[in-house]
């Protein structure tokens, strides 16, 4: 696979093909991220197009201090937030629910209803498409900030530092959002897939 840096160089030199390759590489991820900010697909596609235009216009100034992916996502988040319908009604950052419902622990804080097994189920017995559907449904149920962090970290594979830069949040805040988001997704996987062996 051609490196982003090489594609950027070609793009600066006016190579349309380099643009097409970059679009093929990143457009899907950008659309998915945009959809976590705005309600309609049409608006999300618009945000993504605006982002590509901003990228082309900013090519000369891009110094490559961050990765191309981080730069693309940063622009996209800024665009989406100014458009963001969904963001405005999202739950504030301090959504302080526990990782696991308190009713599952005894008075001393030990498990009363321990985690039900589901890993093997997920790996060997459930269709990839079913898992995908479960995960996407569960992402959709997350408060916007948690969804954004989990998407960028766990789906897109950005580092915590990159996520903080893209979303303009602190490391501590990022960890809290990631924690809440991952915990809820684990819970929905357990609820959907757990206990099948019994």
């Amino acid at each position, binding site marked *: 696979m051609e490196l982003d840096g090489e594609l950027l160089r070609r793009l600066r030199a006016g190579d349309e093909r380099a*643009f097409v390759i970059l679009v093929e590489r990143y*457009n899907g991820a950008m*659309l998915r991220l945009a959809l976590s900010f705005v309600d309609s697909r049409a608006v999300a596609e618009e945000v993504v197009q605006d982002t590509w*235009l901003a990228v*082309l216009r900013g090519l000369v100034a891009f110094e490559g201090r961050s990765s191309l992916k981080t730069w693309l996502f940063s622009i996209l988040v800024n665009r989406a937030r100014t458009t963001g319908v969904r963001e405005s009604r999202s739950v504030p950052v301090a959504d302080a629910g*526990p990782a696991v419902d308190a009713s599952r622990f005894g008075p001393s804080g030990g498990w009363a209803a321990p985690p039900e097994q589901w890993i093997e189920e997920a790996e060997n017995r459930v269709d990839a498409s079913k898992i995908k559907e479960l995960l996407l449904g569960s992402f959709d149920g997350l408060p916007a900030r948690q969804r954004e962090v989990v998407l960028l970290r766990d*789906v897109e594979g950005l580092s915590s530092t990159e996520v903080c830069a893209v979303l303009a949040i602190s490391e501590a805040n990022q*960890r809290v959002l990631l924690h809440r988001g991952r*915990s809820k997704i684990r819970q929905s996987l357990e609820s959907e897939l757990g206990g099948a062996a019994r």
Partner: protein
Amino acid sequence: MRLTFLPWRTRHRALACQEVVELVTDYLEDALTAADRKRFETHLAGCPHCTEYLAQIRETIRLAGRLTPEDLTPDMSTDLTDLYRRWRAEG
């Protein structure tokens, strides 16, 4: 999360499972102090349920990382090529 905020914590006491599940992300992010990390790992060594819980969080992350974005539709592809050409024409 800082352990001191958890009401049931007393110094040097072993962690309860309910505390452990709140520390999993900090553990994976390597954000625990050396002492808390040790307490976390000590708990895990003796607790199959929390070990399972950690494995499930790791599996959750792994499954999320396997999600592939949808393919570019021909319409979007055309729109973006047009966008590129308009930009080129801007000079």
